[in-house]
């Protein structure tokens, strides 16, 4: 079984594709999870 991912591991995959992280938040309707906001770099 794979170890659980971290925010940074997932962010690294995004960054290599040119997706820049804006924020990571635990919102009211999240459970055992976080909402990440990213944008494609110009």
């Amino acid at each position, binding site marked *: 079984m*794979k*170890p*659980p*991912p*971290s*925010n*940074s*591991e*997932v962010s690294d*995959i*995004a960054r*290599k*594709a*040119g*997706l820049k992280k*804006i*924020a*990571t*938040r*635990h*919102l*009211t*309707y*999240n*459970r*055992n*999870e*976080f*909402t*990440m*906001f*990213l*944008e*494609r*770099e*110009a």
Partner: protein
Amino acid sequence: MGHDQTLMHTCETAKEKHAVTGASWLIRISEIFAGHESEIIVGLGAQALRKLGRDFHLIRIKQPEAIRHSPLARYLRWNMPVHHSWPCNPRETDGFIEKAAQALLRKFGESKAQTLICGPIDPGSPKRYDRTLASNLRGRALQLFPSEWSAIKNAEQQNPKKPSLFCLVGKEGLYAGLQSPAECDGFFPGGTKFIPQNSPDTISRAGAKIAEALHHLQLTRRPPPGGARWLEIGASPGGMTTELLAREYEVIAVDRAPLDARLKHRKGLMQFVADAADFMPPPGLTFDAMLCDMNGDARDAMRQLARLSKNLRQGGLVIFTLKLPGISSIDETTTLELRSK
């Protein structure tokens, strides 16, 4: 000692205490982290003073910047410095609303706040008095404050960077503070307005997640304009798709399972019944935004988004749910995060 003198005395005493031991702050830790609140508060270098309602905590903190910059900050849904408090039971206090409104005017009437936003400490209270107390207090206070405080009719009209006077009220009393919505991390006291999840039109609870995410996004940037095209992978049964369509967005929904039958023939929806890993956008198709709330390993889900982001326009938005199955403690999550840096 009169009520006014009591308030002033309380404030002076509080200021003296802050100078010695730190600032009073109100933080909200979602109920999903119940049992871990102490770990989070201690990790922030703070001291718990009192729990308010289901998920608010009054704390004393020496370095308030930890609320925004600590690795544990992600567990806080909302925060507010406490510049004024009146611990009491409003229901048992004669003329509470009038006295509270007058006290807010005296203390904050000449501040540079853009408006006053009140909210309940316990939005789920079954008692009508508790549910209406915040709106009644705001209504009375705004009659007293300068007229420009009333210009904002909807919380989302606030400038996220300018301070507002936030006020939480409930059976535990009244707690108010000046801070911008962006610093508080939400336009409403507590973070977000209540989003119902049990209406006949609700397809899944995921709809509330994207509704709140789009609300939160306005703290930092404009959401995509109406008519923008979203790609959603892992879209079934369609809870998020429904919310996007309701905002007049176009949606390309990809999932190996079909969407809920209620979405059949919905205007603006293009459905692809395919595994996200096999989906290839038709030639020339581009997206303004992408969305993923898929279960399974978050790395695999992000790899699919990364692959498909070639068709995302520059500056385009991505909203991604980072799911952490198997994580059972705050310490475990934070350790993983720090270890991978």
